[in-house]
């Protein structure tokens, strides 16, 4: 193997793949077979973090950055004058195995520019996964990016060898997609997704009857959307995510704040800041929907289509629903405790367990890990709570905003500071 050439390819194809957000190696379990290599577990492991703070758990690369499409937001677009490269199937397999053996990674995330057509590209991706599983006896994590428009037969094969499959929605709205990626259409993205969804459902049914059924995309499907490249609002984004969670049983929806890398009159200018805070708020909303029992409609409504950048979405909800507070920590049900600003899932669980032993007070709450600076205004204890008098204060919101400072505040302020 020509090491210098391999290094060059790796640099080009890692660089081109870095805008794909997903890096999780979780959601599926795959046990190691006796004497073979690797396993994966539900929780996954992040092996390191890049300087931008994102986790690295998978070898995330493109098979090639040759692409027949010319999507405005994509660095690999055909009209962009960049170095092109392509891995052979053997090279990807070799890198994956050797990185895995050294405990650098949990597995492979393989995406690709589209060369020739969807099926040729998809076939090559599947061949990598197949070789890893069948020839190398590899049981680590494999995430394949499905190519929009790939045939059902190839999707079927992909799901047999990969743990997770995903198709990027790219742009949250169809009109936005038409504008920035005129050669792509939503339908080509949806039908492979639907096929996999049905396959997973069928797998689950068969699993109930037969003990041994070959795994079928055990870690499910995910997708990602670019945020801030077109002028969609947060309500639209959350609705799209909600739609895909409900109708396509997706495991995850990722949001990728647009990083301006290309000059194009259809896109925000190159000097636009990456919308980090907005992206963060979207992830917080996503968490509310997946773990806190919030419905999409509760987070935003048509009169208020953008997420509050000043306060997190849960606090924002609480401020609009002050009549539901205070919540008594000793008697309220778990679902309502989850809705108290400053109390997360772990703390809520601990509260429900600990209150069986004794009556809780503010001091306990602090020790259990709640963000008391926010939570204290929304909670009633059996012994009463002096902070509750602020709850009806007209300036309550300002009091809260002033009392807590976001760690992102300066770093990712939407407004450029002048000095």
């Amino acid at each position, binding site marked *: 193997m020509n090491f210098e050439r391999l290094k060059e390819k790796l*640099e080009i194809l890692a660089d081109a793949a870095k805008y794909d957000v997903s890096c999780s190696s979780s959601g599926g379990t795959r046990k190691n077979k006796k004497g073979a*290599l690797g*396993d994966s577990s539900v929780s996954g492991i992040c092996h*390191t*973090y890049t300087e931008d703070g994102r986790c*690295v758990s998978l070898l995330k690369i493109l098979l090639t950055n040759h692409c027949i499409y010319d999507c405005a937001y994509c660095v690999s677009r055909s009209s962009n004058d960049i170095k092109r490269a392509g891995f052979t199937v053997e090279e990807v397999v070799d890198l994956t195995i050797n*990185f895995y*053996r*050294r405990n650098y990674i949990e597995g492979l995330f393989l995406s690709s520019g589209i060369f020739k057509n969807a099926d040729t590209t998809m076939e090559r991706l599947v061949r990598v996964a197949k070789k890893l599983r069948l020839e190398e006896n590899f049981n680590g994590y494999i995430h394949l990016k499905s190519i929009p428009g790939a045939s059902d037969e190839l999707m079927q094969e992909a799901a047999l060898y990969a743990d997770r499959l995903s198709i990027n929605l790219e742009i949250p709205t169809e009109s936005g997609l038409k504008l920035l990626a005129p050669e792509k259409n939503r339908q080509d993205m949806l039908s492979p997704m639907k096929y996999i969804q049905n396959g997973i459902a069928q797998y689950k049914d068969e699993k109930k009857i037969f003990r041994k059924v070959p795994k079928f995309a055990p870690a499910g499907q995910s997708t990602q959307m670019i945020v801030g490249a077109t002028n969609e609002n947060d309500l639209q984004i959350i609705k799209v995510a909600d739609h895909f969670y409900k109708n396509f049983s997706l495991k995850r929806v990722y949001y990728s704040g647009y990083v301006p890398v290309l000059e194009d009159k259809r896109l925000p200018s190159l000097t636009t800041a990456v919308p980090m805070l907005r992206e963060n708020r979207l992830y917080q909303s996503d968490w509310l929907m997946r773990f806190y029992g919030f419905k999409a409609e509760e987070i935003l409504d048509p009169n208020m289509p953008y997420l509050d950048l000043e306060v997190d979405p849960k606090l924002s909800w609480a401020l609009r629903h002050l009549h539901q507070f205070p919540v008594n920590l000793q008697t309220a049900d778990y679902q309502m405790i989850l809705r108290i600003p400053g109390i997360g899932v772990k703390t809520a669980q601990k509260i429900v367990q600990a209150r069986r032993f004794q009556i809780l007070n503010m001091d*306990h709450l602090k020790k259990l890990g709640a963000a008391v600076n926010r939570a204290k205004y929304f909670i009633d204890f059996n012994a009463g709570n002096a902070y509750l008098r602020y709850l009806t204060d007209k300036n309550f919101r300002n009091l809260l905003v002033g009392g807590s400072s976001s760690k992102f505040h300066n770093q990712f302020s939407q407004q450029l500071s002048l000095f």
Partner: protein
Amino acid sequence: MITLLYDGSFDGLLTAVFEVFEYRYKDVEIVSNGRFHQENIFAEIHEVITQSDKAERVLKKLEQNIEKSGIHELLKVYLSEDSELEQLILSAIRQSIQHPDKNILQNYADTDILKISKICKSVSRERHRMTAFVRFEKMQDGVFFAKIDPDFDVLPLIRKHFKDRYQDQKWMIYDLRRNYGILYDLENCEFFYPEEKLDLHKYQQKFHDEEQNYQTLWQRYFTKTNIVERKNLKLHVQHVPKRYWKYLTEKW
């Protein structure tokens, strides 16, 4: 005040706990041999001789009350090497004997239990990080070797993870601070205790021919997968504390 001296092992500690109940001691402290400095010359010393059947009986009782997972938490407290570990474990066991019908480890409003829960969290975090941050280097003889230096003694907690994962390669993980390790030779996966510290100076010369190439590839990958426009070093350091950097290939 009675001071119980034990040999520093987990079994020894449980034997000591057993004897606290056996002799109905009220005001006690349990101290390991290694950390014992006699300050109070009037202290009454009780030497504990580790007996596995006594330790076993404590474990059995505990399993009824706080289940296997609870015992696992106490084991983590033991591995934390915390200066209060004996006192905390004794306190938890006493509470558990007093309230056999409840899992007292969930009583987070109790000071000792909360401390235990915090220590467990720290130890678990370190355990998790050690499954992530171990970096194997392939040696000439084909063994994948890794050196670690964790704040807590987590090797016993990560053995199974690596044993399950790497079954078709020989590997070794060595704790520099505590001078012991795990060795897997394709058949057995056992702890080993070298008589002298391993000599790490010569070890880089014994790399397999291909090792340097893969390290370089990994370093290049790490650099290229970063998005410069989103640089956030504060977050980076929060996830990968600097004390681990010296053993991470990508932080060369």
